[in-house]
């Protein structure tokens, strides 16, 4: 038999909707694309736009799995489209925008607004003791292992997959989600941030924070960066419990 298999025809079902168009309604549109070697959904979607429908809207920026722009539901699961090889999927692929975020059009969603609100709400920046620091002097020392540990949590790309994968937040949109909890864990770990446990408790010690998490672990299982979300949320839960006991 011939080793060269003829390429598959991919059937791509895209959930489309243009909220700016009053006559439009959410509907599925099917596109057929001939599969190529090493093809990713980035290539697929661009082919569709270039050859089949130039109005198809989607977001890619780095197209290398680094920036987190292209999160969407691929066969129902949130993931980064740019680093999804079609060879790992069936020939029939469904694409839909992530739920919960504001829809711009088709697969394009407005994660920026959501994440900005989250960052502002959780104050995800270093709260230093003194504001004016002298940068001519040697930098503050940090334990090398701790720096690595902080970086591990700093790798989040705010793609929103954990939010879309979280059952809790679907029902209760005021929940901060794994992305928010991970950020708090990151700053809690960071000795440069001088916030007290009580201040962190104020941020996440309620049903919208760590105590709202029901440990469905959708976040952990869909995170494209393999962040240790389950373990960090557990850590925060223990920390916050301790803080409550302490007071």
């Amino acid at each position: 038999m011939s080793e060269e298999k003829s390429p598959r025809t991919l059937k791509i079902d895209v959930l489309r909707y243009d909220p700016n168009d009053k006559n439009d309604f959410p509907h599925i549109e099917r596109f057929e694309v001939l599969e190529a070697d090493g093809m990713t959904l980035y290539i697929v979607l661009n082919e569709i736009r270039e050859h089949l429908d130039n109005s198809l809207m989607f977001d890619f920026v780095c197209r290398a799995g680094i920036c987190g722009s292209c999160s969407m539901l691929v066969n129902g699961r949130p993931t980064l489209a740019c680093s999804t090889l079609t060879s790992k999927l069936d020939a029939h692929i469904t694409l839909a925008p992530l739920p919960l975020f504001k829809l711009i059009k088709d697969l394009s969603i407005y994660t920026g607004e959501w994440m900005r609100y989250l960052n502002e709400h959780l104050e995800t920046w270093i709260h230093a003791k003194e504001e004016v620091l002298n940068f001519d002097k040697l930098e503050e020392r940090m334990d090398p292992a701790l720096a690595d540990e902080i970086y591990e949590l700093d790798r989040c790309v705010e793609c929103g997959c954990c939010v879309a994968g979280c059952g809790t937040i679907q029902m209760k949109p005021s929940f901060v989600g794994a992305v928010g909890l991970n950020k708090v864990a990151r700053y809690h770990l960071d000795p440069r941030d001088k916030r007290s446990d009580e201040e962190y408790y104020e941020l996440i010690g309620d049903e919208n924070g760590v105590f709202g998490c029901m440990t469905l672990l959708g976040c952990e299982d869909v995170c494209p960066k393999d962040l240790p979300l389950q373990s960090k949320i557990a850590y925060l839960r223990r920390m916050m419990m301790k803080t409550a006991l302490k007071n």
Partner: protein
Amino acid sequence: MKQEKIDKVPAWLDFTQSATGLILALFIMGHILFEASILVSNELMYKVTLMFEGYYFFGETYPGIVSFLAAAIFILFIVHAALALRKFPSSYQQYKIIREHTTRMQHEDSSLWMIQVITGFMMFFIGSVHLYIMMSQPSNIGPYASSHRVVAEFMGPLYFMLLLAVISHAFIGLYRLALKWGFMEGKHPEISRAKFKLLMKAMIAVYIIVGLSSLGKYTYIGLTHDFSDGVKYKSQTIHMENH
């Protein structure tokens, strides 16, 4: 640093839900094993009931102990249910969203939670019935009395549903509890999680087999035993006046 007074209630609610869940799950694990003593012999099952009525401590039986235990469990059950209720979908809209979410995601742990919601909901009713009977008729526990309740008092189907519900709810709950608080997560949480999940599934299987076998045995006794003498069990080794 500013030292504001923090609201500790959410922490306590969360902790209490976990703690009551843990106690109830451990209780169930024991309960089903004790009840399975029927598989060994009627005699053993009888001795187990005597034990719970305090016979081996006081030399005579006090069914009130069982009532008391059942009441304690009932309280834990109610507290746990009340706290868990906070997490339930609170409207049809929410229910629809979570249903769609779990169907779409095909994600095991999310689906397991749905099972907990459904089984938890079931237990509001059948668990309450069961607990109430245990509280109100503590002395009606025994190889024949229980069998009679299963068959003649039509509790069999209810027990069957309760068994499936409570076992899956309890072990999924224990699994979730371990992950929730990072119990024994070790250096590789993903590996311990996989192990816990395997353990959970194994325990569910084992307990369902044991539980169904016991239920089968009670049903068998309930169908074949001659209850014309009443439902009291006559032990060959222990003779009591009031039993």
